[in-house]
């Protein structure tokens, strides 16, 4: 079965092309193809997953064919499958399938329906390729491809200027990180002499890589992850990416693509584990991200943006876990988060689809109108807040335990972020579904969505309910995804139960306070908002990160302008135009020489010929007697010569 795993991305690629070119001849305008392929992929991935959990697969599996060679190096195309790959594979295919089905309802009637499915398939193909590839080069290609798909899908409704802007922003911001990724990749190639993941890992496990260089390469690669996974300070693009359709937000900007950065770090974890510096960078970046993003979500009124900040924050958790040395916890959180965050996004999309607004201030009291959405959103909220026994509790608990084992300050940041997470989720939940309808018109028009949208919600709720417990049970996930190498630092012993208790108390207390405040005393948050307007402003401006980057843009702009002026006023005027002037003058001199010497010489021959002709012409009078006179003269002359001698 593993031998044919390469079919998955290829099938999706084919589906993307097929939908785009011939979609209109298939049922559902080509959506049927996309769903069929996604279903097939899900079936394969699920089979692999359960086989792997049961230990029925020989892992890691690797197979590759030569692609091309450069110098003595060989680039290959191939698959590398281990437990990590399979964990990622099941996440991608599950969410992909559900989003494909969900989009049937959500995108119904969109003029670019066909194109949407084609993009979804293309994205899935790239993501699967990224997951199973055996070569870092192909990994990078797929990495960029998912970036392109993200750009295309964020700007899917490009008639809206904000959507087009958001797409551009996402693309450019992630490119900033990808620059580091590319350099890091080349540095890694320089260290390891190969792009093969298996060989790189082998060398890293054998401690055969130069530690400083490998650490540098790892940090540079992490820049790519910072961009892709929206870590601090490149997190600014993800909230804006919510301009895209909600299924896209669920698939790309919650579950899979943004997790690609985390996956990359996990994929090359052996390399990161060589260098304490790299691990620290990853951990602290993750912790800061988790904290800042969670704080930003506190004041946000846009439902999808709240979820986006929460996504950023949770990605920060994953990075924190990886950087703190809890490899399994990081990947575990990735898996559970993918499910409940996809659930939340799809539920939010369902709300949006019903009320046609993102703003929570225009919602409220929707729980009777949309019961299924209400329940599923509640499950997602509880999972995200980390309330037992929902999925988020298990994974977040492990992350916090790992953080505490590494460094108490990391734990502190993570715990505060967890408290804020519970609070803002309670706030969003209450503002959306409870209370009195704040916009009666929108409330009246709201209705429950069709089965194509609710069924994926229900399926995901089940996963959000049980996946944490099921995978944590008997350390099932740890058997699948585990890091066997040595960590560069000692971990403290931590009592797991204590951490679980503390985190549960924190989550319950903050969630409860959030529920109580927004349900019964909504005037208190409003008053606080008034009082601490500076902090609110700071949070709404995202710690001025946008301004910071725009400042650089402005500086770049100004510098370009300066260069333009310099180029135009100085270089062009002095050098180019100077040359032009000089050339002009030289040309004039040459022109003079040409006209008055060369041409004149040539003309002289012409003039002389002409004058001679004119002279000779006078002889030809056309007057016969004239000719006779000449004859007579000539005869006289000859006679004179003949007889004078």
């Amino acid at each position, binding site marked *: 079965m593993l031998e044919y795993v390469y079919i998955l991305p290829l099938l999706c690629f084919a589906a993307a092309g097929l939908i785009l070119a011939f979609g209109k001849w298939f049922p559902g305008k080509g959506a049927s193809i996309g769903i069929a392929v996604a279903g097939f992929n899900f079936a394969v991935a699920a089979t692999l997953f359960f086989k792997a959990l049961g230990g029925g697969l020989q892992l890691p599996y690797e197979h590759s064919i030569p692609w091309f060679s450069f110098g003595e190096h060989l680039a290959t195309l191939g698959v590398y499958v281990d437990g990590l790959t399979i964990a990622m594979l099941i996440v991608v295919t599950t969410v992909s399938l559900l989003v494909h089905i969900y989009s049937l309802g959500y995108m119904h009637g969109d003029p670019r329906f066909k194109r949407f499915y084609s993009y979804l398939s293309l994205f899935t193909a790239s993501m699967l390729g990224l997951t199973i590839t055996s070569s870092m080069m192909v990994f990078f290609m797929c990495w960029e491809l998912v970036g392109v798909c993200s750009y295309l899908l964020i700007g899917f409704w490009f008639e809206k200027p904000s959507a087009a802007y958001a797409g551009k922003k996402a693309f450019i911001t992630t490119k900033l990180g990808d620059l580091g990724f590319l350099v890091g990749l080349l540095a890694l190639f320089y260290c390891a002499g190969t792009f093969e993941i298996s060989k790189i890992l082998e060398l890293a496990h054998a401690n055969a890589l130069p530690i400083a260089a490998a650490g540098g390469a790892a940090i540079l690669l992490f820049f790519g992850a910072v961009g892709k996974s929206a870590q601090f300070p490149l997190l600014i693009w993800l909230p804006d990416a919510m301009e895209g359709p909600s299924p896209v937000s669920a698939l790309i900007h919650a579950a899979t693509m943004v997790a690609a950065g985390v996956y990359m770090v996990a994929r090359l974890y052996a390399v990161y584990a060589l260098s304490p510096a790299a691990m620290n960078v990853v951990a602290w970046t993750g912790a800061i991200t988790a904290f800042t993003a969670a704080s930003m979500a506190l004041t946000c009124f846009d439902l999808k943006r709240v979820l986006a900040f929460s996504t950023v924050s949770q990605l920060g958790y994953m990075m924190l876990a990886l950087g703190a040395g809890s490899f399994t916890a990081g990947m575990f959180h990735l898996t559970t988060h993918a499910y409940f965050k996809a659930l939340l996004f799809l539920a939010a999309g369902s709300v949006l689809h019903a009320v046609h607004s993102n703003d929570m201030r225009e919602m409220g009291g929707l729980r009777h109108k949309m019961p299924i959405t209400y329940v599923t959103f509640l499950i997602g909220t509880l999972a995200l807040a980390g309330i037992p026994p929902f999925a988020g509790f298990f994974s977040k608990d492990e992350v916090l335990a790992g953080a505490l084992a590494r460094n108490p300050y990391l734990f502190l940041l993570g715990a505060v972020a967890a408290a804020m997470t519970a609070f803002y989720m309670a706030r969003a939940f209450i503002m959306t579904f409870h209370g009195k309808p704040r916009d009666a018109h929108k409330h009246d028009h709201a209705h429950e969505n069709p089965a194509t949208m609710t069924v994926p919600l229900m399926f995901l709720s089940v996963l959000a309910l049980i996946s944490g417990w099921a995978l944590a049970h008997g350390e099932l996930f740890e058997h699948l995804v585990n890091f066997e190498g040595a960590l560069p630092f000692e971990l403290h012993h931590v009592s797991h139960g204590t951490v679980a208790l503390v985190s549960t108390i924190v989550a319950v207390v903050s969630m409860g306070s959030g529920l109580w405040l927004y349900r019964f005393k909504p005037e208190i948050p409003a008053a606080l908002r008034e009082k601490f307007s500076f902090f609110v402003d700071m949070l709404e401006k995202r710690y001025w990160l946008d301004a910071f980057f725009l400042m650089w843009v402005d500086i770049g702009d100004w510098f370009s302008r300066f260069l333009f002026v310099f180029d135009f006023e100085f270089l062009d005027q002095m050098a180019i135009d100077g040359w032009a002037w000089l050339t002009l003058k030289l040309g004039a001199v040459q022109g003079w020489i040409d006209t008055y010497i060369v041409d004149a010489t040539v003309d002289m021959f012409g003039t002389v010929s002409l004058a001679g002709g004119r002279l000779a012409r006078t002889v*030809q*009078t*056309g*007057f*016969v*007697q004239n000719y*006779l*006179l000449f004859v*007579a003269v000539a005869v006289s002359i000859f006679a004179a010569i003949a007889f004078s001698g």
Partner: protein
Amino acid sequence: MTLYHYLALSGLLFASGVFGVLTRRNIIGILMSIELMLNSANINFAAFNSYLYPDRPLGQVAVIFIITLAAAEVVVGLALVMAIYKNLKSVYAEDYNILKG
């Protein structure tokens, strides 16, 4: 009388014929001048024949040939003059210049 006198007269006659050919504007005048030149040749032939070779009248034969040719020439020439005159309404040689470039 010596041969020289005849030759002198014929020279004068020839020179006036040449002068006429070169200077007359009238095409008929030119033809007449040509007749003068032919006559001067005739005088020469006859004189040479009489003074130098009196035993055989070869010079006189030549004169007869010349007279014949002159008659033919005048006939054709005058016919041409008439034809040209009919076309151009002019008897002046300088008007006959349609071949001039």
